[in-house]
């Protein structure tokens, strides 16, 4: 049954490609990074990568569902900030007074005691937060299906609006409980904040469970099939008697609720809800993970397996770059995500284009030679630890030489084709 095996490989070519890329990244990092060569640091690294991947992975799944259904959800980052704020806000509102403390301005009142919370307090706060997230998703669905706003606009409004709302809310909540307006809430309960260290596996378990649930939804249920149909051809789906508006409601609700779940976990991880900076720009990480994982932004295409691998791949590369260049991972995040999204999608587009693909046609081609070599030089300069200017210049000039001759070669080939 060679044909079946071949078909299997073809169907999951994107997943196999990602697995190969992940192994490559692991191999290169293991060869050059000390962190991978020592059992103790390797364990730490593995834990940190697992936790970080899981945190992004949770809301990347939501982003993927919306993308598969033919939409886009730009609000993830703000929903993360908003839900983290709400979760901690509900907790301090519900938490008992700490009798040992007094408000500076009003001796009758006490600060909330968050060091050891009764189990029901985080539970209720979590349920309320997820409830609000469901309302946020439903509001998106209403704007999109009833008011007929484009998904981009509806969720863009949330992206800018919700963060602002969270920053306003946190001031009022803190005024009620602390007697002064603050822009952050910090919780002391060690059970909640332990996921940053000893309980690193909690986000991972949540992510795995969520992956299984969403995989079931997308590939084993009628609703899942209908989501693919909606993303593939909305009009045809509607004319097939599928309630497309309800499906969109479901998709945007899952999008908002997975973001909120991640928001709660991020807040616990950091121990402080700070809506002005939490989850800033994370929506793009989620969309990038989905796209690198093989989801098509025009809808109807994508798998849970691909999204998992896409998330893992992005996180691994960000970490490897940081390890290899001994720097903070968050500094590299944007650069790595940007480059990889371009690479992954270009790779998919160019597959099958063959060796005859012309990369640098016209004036734009010449300019691109300059842009690419300049970009390579600058990236080299900022990532080198010493002799930044010299190494950047060398790489830039070499790259320019190579790309320039490629461009010249293409023009010679084209002339030859014409002549023959």
């Amino acid at each position, binding site marked *: 049954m060679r044909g079946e095996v071949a078909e299997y490989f073809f169907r999951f070519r994107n997943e196999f490609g990602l697995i190969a890329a992940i192994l490559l990244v692991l191999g290169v990092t293991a060869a050059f990074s000390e962190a991978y060569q020592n059992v103790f640091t390797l364990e730490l690294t593995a834990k940190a990568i697992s936790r970080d991947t899981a945190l992004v992975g949770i809301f990347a799944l939501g982003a993927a569902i919306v993308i598969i259904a033919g939409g886009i959800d730009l609000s993830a980052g703000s929903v993360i900030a908003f839900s983290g704020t709400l979760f901690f806000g509900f907790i301090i509102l519900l938490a008992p007074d700490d009798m040992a403390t007094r408000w500076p301005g009003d001796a009758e009142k006490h600060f909330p005691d968050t060091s050891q919370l009764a189990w029901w307090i985080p539970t209720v706060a979590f349920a309320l937060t997820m409830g609000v997230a469901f309302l946020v998703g439903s509001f998106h669905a209403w704007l999109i299906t009833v008011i007929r706003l484009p998904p981009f606009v509806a969720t863009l409004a949330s992206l800018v609006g919700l963060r602002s709302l969270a920053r306003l809310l946190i001031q009022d909540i803190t005024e009620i409980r602390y007697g002064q307006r603050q822009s952050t809430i910090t919780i002391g309960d060690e059970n909640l904040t332990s996921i940053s260290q000893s309980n690193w596996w909690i986000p991972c378990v949540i992510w795995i469970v969520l992956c299984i649930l969403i995989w079931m939804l997308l590939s*084993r*249920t*009628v*609703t899942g*099939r*209908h989501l*693919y*149909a909606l993303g*593939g*051809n909305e*009009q*045809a*789906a*509607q*004319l*097939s*008697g*599928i*309630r497309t508006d309800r499906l969109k409601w479901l998709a945007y609700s899952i999008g908002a609720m997975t973001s909120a779940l991640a928001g709660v976990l991020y807040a616990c991880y950091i121990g402080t809800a700070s809506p002005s900076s939490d989850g800033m720009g994370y929506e793009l990480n989620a969309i990038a993970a989905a796209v690198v994982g093989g989801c098509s932004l025009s809808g*109807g*295409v994508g798998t849970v397996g691909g999204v998992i691998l896409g998330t893992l791949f992005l996180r691994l590369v960000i970490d490897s770059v940081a390890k290899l260049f001994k720097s903070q991972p968050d500094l590299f995040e944007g650069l790595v995500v940007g480059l990889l999204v371009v690479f992954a999608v270009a790779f998919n587009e160019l597959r099958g284009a063959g060796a005859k693909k012309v990369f640098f046609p016209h004036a734009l081609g010449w300019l691109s030679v300059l842009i690419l070599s300049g970009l390579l030089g600058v990236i080299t300069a900022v990532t080198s630890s010493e002799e930044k200017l010299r190494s950047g210049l060398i790489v830039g000039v070499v790259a320019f030489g190579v790309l320039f001759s490629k461009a010249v070669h293409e023009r010679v080939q084209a002339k030859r*084709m*014409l002549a023959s």
Partner: protein
Amino acid sequence: MNDARPSNANPVISFQGVTKEFPGVIALQGITFDVHEGEFFSICGENGAGKSTLMKILSGVITQYEGHFSVRGDQSRFSGTRDAERAGIAIIHQELNLVEQLSVAANLFLGREKRNRWGLIDDWAMEREARELFGQLECDVDPRVPVGRLRVGDQQLVEIAKALSLRADILIMDEPTSALTESEVARLFRVIARLRESGVTILYISHKMEEVFRLSDRIMVLRDGQMVSLLKRSETNAQQVTQLMVGREIATLDCSEPRRPGEVVLEVKNLSLPWPGHVRGWRLKDISFALRRGEIVGVAGLMGAGRTELLESLFGASSQVPEGEILIRGKRMKFTHPSQAKDAGIALVTEDRKRLGLFAQMNVRENISLCRLAKTSSGGMIQGGREGRMVAEIVDQLGIRTAGTSVPITSLSGGNQQKCIIGRWLLTEPQILLLDDPTRGIDVGAKAELYRLMDRLCRDGMAILLTSSELPELLAVSDRILVLSEGRLSGEFSRSEATEEKILTAAMQSVG
């Protein structure tokens, strides 16, 4: 007509052993033929016979192939459509390539806009030249209106005018009449006749024998990528060409045994569909009719008469809420979503297969099972085995030719795709089947099969409401024919009294 057109010794186009292979399929095999100047050269063949591939090679869309061809004696190897344009070859595709939001003149000069001396766009000059071009075609099209507001027939004229303005003297037309009304077809043929007088060579691809035989000098028949035969029109007839195309006898619909309609399943009383912002105010106005079990009712009408809108309002898919009454088996119904119509036992096979019917990213199985999936699932979970059996059964029953049910739907021919969509709806076990121009763009053999299928379904007790842009088709399969004109019912004919003339007269009659 002038059959003994003097043909030059030098052919305008000459193909020599052109072969094109796609992975796994030989699309064309050693095609050799000549076309003479000013000739009307028809190319016939079933879907997948290689007509489009051949024309794509000639128009520079496909650049990798074996063999060679020459245009006006010059060995040609186009590296793109621009080269073909430079050689005077223009192609008018089945799907028109126009920007709907731009004006007619802007579309005509798209990519080679005229400019005034400041380097700014000179709309006035373009409109003037556009008017001259339409004058040459003796057609009245306003160059300033956006193309999206034109009817399909007029949009096609824009494409022809564009070819003229490119000074093309070889014009390839791929199924140009598939979306045209009878009067628009007549006008198109007047335009073609005029073009030939000025020496334009025309390569014409069509499924419709009537058109092929109207003007052709010669007819080339392709089958499975091979040229089966090259005939002079004067020495052949439609039946022979059709037989050559399919390579077998086509059984025309055998209606010796008349169908016996049963009780009324669908009754429509004073159905009106509002059209806000339009002078007429209504897309449909006061339509009343009944549909019985076991009968096929045809709906005739010119483009824009409201055929599609009628089916859509019955299916709960219209953009506005229709007024009036719809009774299903005597029960008054009001559908606001197709899912309600589906539950009430109505199925609609839409007119535009690609846009409104197919899910291109899904395979054959997923495309077929879609409407029935919810009913065969348990607890919302898809039952893979049951789904597979259900699909295999319908594939078998409808004779859908496919290499398995997990191949992409796009790998099937048009006719088989259409059967998949009909199969999708048959699985819902409907009592009323609405078919909106189901044979559009599919080949003769598949059409005959669809007619037989409709007949069989009808005899099994289904009620079918059918629209078609081809009158002979409606006459052949319908028990009764309703005629729409400008959204109103302008005639109703039984099978015995219906003729093409009567229907056309009713369709063109102004009832407003």
